[in-house]
């Protein structure tokens, strides 16, 4: 027997949703959704859970992650309840629920908190620069070490426990029995979805969106790989240098498209932008651009005289790695892939 929690609606509005209470359960959204199936029917059911505040059911559900926000439902909803944005808000809310530190929720709910976090990280970088007396070589070396350390730490201290929590909400708590072999066979799905987001192809809207996203993922992973493992900024190899240029160009061009979409608000999914959405695309863009500029300045031999450029790049990088990746929208990429993994192992 479940009881109603009307407070949940208010809570959810802090994550971006509004007016989903207007839903009168006609089911149009579910009918037009090209990803909804008989077995996994959404988004109406999720709206209903949200209206009633059935938090445990939402936590145990993968449906928010099965939605890729084409926005068809929002376009067709006769009550203008914006089911698409509700699904997006649920993803944000779930992210905050998975996150054991609670920082994720704090940053989603409060813009001030986000600004403070960004400022603090920036000040830390500047402080470090002051301490080293603006020694470019030292700073660059630390930057490289920082990247490797942070990747490992963020993953083991934050993301891995969060994934375990997600697993708990979805598999363990509801008492679903999953044979061990499924965990192994399911890995294939994990990899495929993580790198291709192939499910988006099921959406009826333009496939361009999927393609842009795919390119961006490869660009992003490429940049990560070249800077961290191939040490792009210190590399002498032409191949590595060119590769770095290519991936960083990819990143900032694709993000420019994304930003302009959000400004033009043509697609349903880009009509409503939360600070977290802006932050994600803008920082990605700045990362691509600043990395590109840093390497260019190195090649032109003028970085030494323009140390501010590297500092800017460093600030962006630190903010990205310490704020956006562990607590921001970046995690959607991870949780979404794992959602597909859990979905596969549950069903097999």
């Amino acid at each position, binding site marked *: 027997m*479940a*009881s109603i929690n009307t407070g949940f609606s208010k809570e959810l509005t802090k994550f971006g949703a509004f007016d989903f*209470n*207007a839903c*009168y*359960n006609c089911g149009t959204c579910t009918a037009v959704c090209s990803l909804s199936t008989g077995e996994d029917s959404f988004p109406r*059911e999720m709206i209903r859970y949200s209206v*009633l505040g059935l938090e445990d059911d939402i936590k145990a559900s993968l449906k928010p992650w099965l939605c890729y926000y084409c926005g068809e439902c929002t376009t067709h909803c006769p*009550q203008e309840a914006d089911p698409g944005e509700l699904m997006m808000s649920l993803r944000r809310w779930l992210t905050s629920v998975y996150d054991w530190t609670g920082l994720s929720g704090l940053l989603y709910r409060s813009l001030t908190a986000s600004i403070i976090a960004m400022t603090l990280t920036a000040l830390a970088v500047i402080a470090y620069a002051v301490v080293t007396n603006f020694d470019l070589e030292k700073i660059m070396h630390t930057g490289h070490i920082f990247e490797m350390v942070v990747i490992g730490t963020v993953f083991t201290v934050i993301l891995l426990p969060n994934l375990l929590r997600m697993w708990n909400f979805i598999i363990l708590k509801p008492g679903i029995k999953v044979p061990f072999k499924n965990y192994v066979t399911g890995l294939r799905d994990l990899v495929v979805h993580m790198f291709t987001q192939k499910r988006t192809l099921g959406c009826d809207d333009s496939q361009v969106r999927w393609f842009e996203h795919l390119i961006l993922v490869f660009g992003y992973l490429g940049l990560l790989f070249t800077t961290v493992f191939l040490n792009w900024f210190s590399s002498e190899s032409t191949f590595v240098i060119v590769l770095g240029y290519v991936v960083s160009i990819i990143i900032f061009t694709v993000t420019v498209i994304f930003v302009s979409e959000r400004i033009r608000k043509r697609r349903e999914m880009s009509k409503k932008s939360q600070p977290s959405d802006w932050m994600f695309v803008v920082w990605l863009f700045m990362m691509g651009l600043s990395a590109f500029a840093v390497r260019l300045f190195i090649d032109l031999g003028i970085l030494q005289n323009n140390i501010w450029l590297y500092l800017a790049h460093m600030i962006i990088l630190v903010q990205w790695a310490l704020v956006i990746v562990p607590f921001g929208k970046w995690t959607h990429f991870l949780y979404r892939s794992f959602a597909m993994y859990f979905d596969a192992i549950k069903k097999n």
Partner: protein
Amino acid sequence: MNKKLGVYICHCGGNISDYIDVEKVKAAVAGEDGVYLAKTTMFACSDATQKEMVEDIRSNNLDGIVVASCSPKLHLLTFRAVSERALLNKYNYVHANIREQGSWAHSDDKAGATEKAVSLVKAAIAKVRLARSLDPIIIPSKKAVAIIGAGVAGMRAAIELADMGCPVTLVEREYFVGGRVAQWDVMFTTNQTGKELVTRLYNEVIARDNITLLTGAEVVANSGSIGDFTLKIKVTPRYMKEKCDQNNLLKAIEACPVVVPDDFNFNITSRKAIYHNFPGEFPQYPVIDIKNCTRCGECEKICSSVDFSQQEQTVEVHVGSVVMATGFDPYTPAEGEFGYKLSDFVVTLPQFKRLTDINKDNLVYNGREIRNIAYIYCVGSRQSEGDNKYCSRYCCTSAIHASLEARNKFRNVNNFHFTRGIRTYGKQELLYAESLRKGDVYLQAYEENPPLVEVKDGQITVTINDIMTGGREISVIPDLLVLVTGMVPRADNSIASKFKLPKGRDSFFNEIHMKLRPVETVIDGVTISGACQGPKNITESVNSALSAAAKSYSFVNKGELALEPIIAGIDKDLCTWCGECEKACPFDAIKKEKQGEKEIAVINNSVCKGCGMCLPVCPVNAINLIAFSDREIESMIDALVSV
């Protein structure tokens, strides 16, 4: 003399001619005795054909016509009018129904249908041969209307009739006008209060000289019929002089020792035997409720306006027509129905409306601050088992409106609606949308699985298998449970038997035809309006009141009425008064009368509807129905069997 007859056989655009060979029918009847012309037509009712008929009748001096087409229910009046335009007495036109009784009934047997059509037309021809010209019965009609009930419907009808120049007697049983609406505070969909509306209507009523308002008044007897009703009305006094001193009055009320539940507030509060309902009710002076008063005289000692010498009076009014506007009662749940009476915190919607009106800043009831409110819909309506199968129409909107009102007026109110599917039709849907947006929670169940109410240690739990959440069991523990009760006919509806008013399946007063004659009843001259006819909101009640006013006006405005002459007639010589016909007549049109030495049956021409029920019961065959005499009927039977 042999009559010259015209026969028209209609195709009905294929409705008839697809199954009946109309040409064959024409050929079969063309040679009948007296038939001067026989024609087929695509649409007999079309303007062109009507003109052609008029032309035919005039230029050929026809003495009678037969139209074979659809049911006379549809077009009898059309072709009567055609005859009149051609200066042919309309009773010389006879109708044959070859669509409902021919083509549609026998679509599987074209030859048979055609044969039957031939017989029906021949029978009609036989009847028209014997038809006589008839004149309508003209009776005087008193230009005055009585309206029973001074709710919104009654008052609105009174104003309308008065403005058309018709004197009105407005009879209200209670001491205050306004009916139910006086009891509501803010109302959908206008957001005006009941008080405002009733005040406006009342001021309009008293501003008109030709409206006589009687309060505390009840019709105790009715005699007569359309054009001439005589009503005996008992008027109970207020036992108060008009214009009394407010100060003393309040003291007098305080002094009265008798405390009774206040039905104005649906018994959630109490009042004294001397009381008023200021400021919302009119006329604005108090009453002594004599049924509960013990005549102890306490009030009389304080207030000089108390006047126990006033006497009950009976007045007699004569009117040409009567408008019924007696309204409805809210449904009262049975004990235990959704927890009713099992907890102090289970109330009905009307009680809840009074509650939100009476409370000012906080919603407090029986000492408890009310925050979480559950509403169970369709209580006493849409019952799968029980009498009230109908939807009460107003209650979804009213409950939503009241819950929004509670949300807006008081702090921290949460509303939980347990519905059977919301029916806020038309613009009322906007209220539903607003309620959803504000965060009210709606749950829904099917009729066979209604919400369950449990009361334990003063705690109410409402549980539902919510079909919007895949049948999940969901429960709410509200501070207050509101039963959204529907409308039922007035508990004391004895007025109906005084007028012999028929009731429908749902026990409300019944109209003749929902769409074609929506405010008339089978009792000529008596119209119905407002919620006494079935659940209605104010707009709908007023619309029907205006319609009833117009209809009643049409009965009285000329000072006389033309009635259908097709009625029963009694052969004085044959009648021996056995009383059988009186028993058979459903309209009370037959009375015994002494004529010389003999007692015979006499028919009241303005009441008889020509239904013919009295004919077969007469042992001496003394009754004949005009236009359906034995000769006419026998000639038709002959024609039918001769084929």
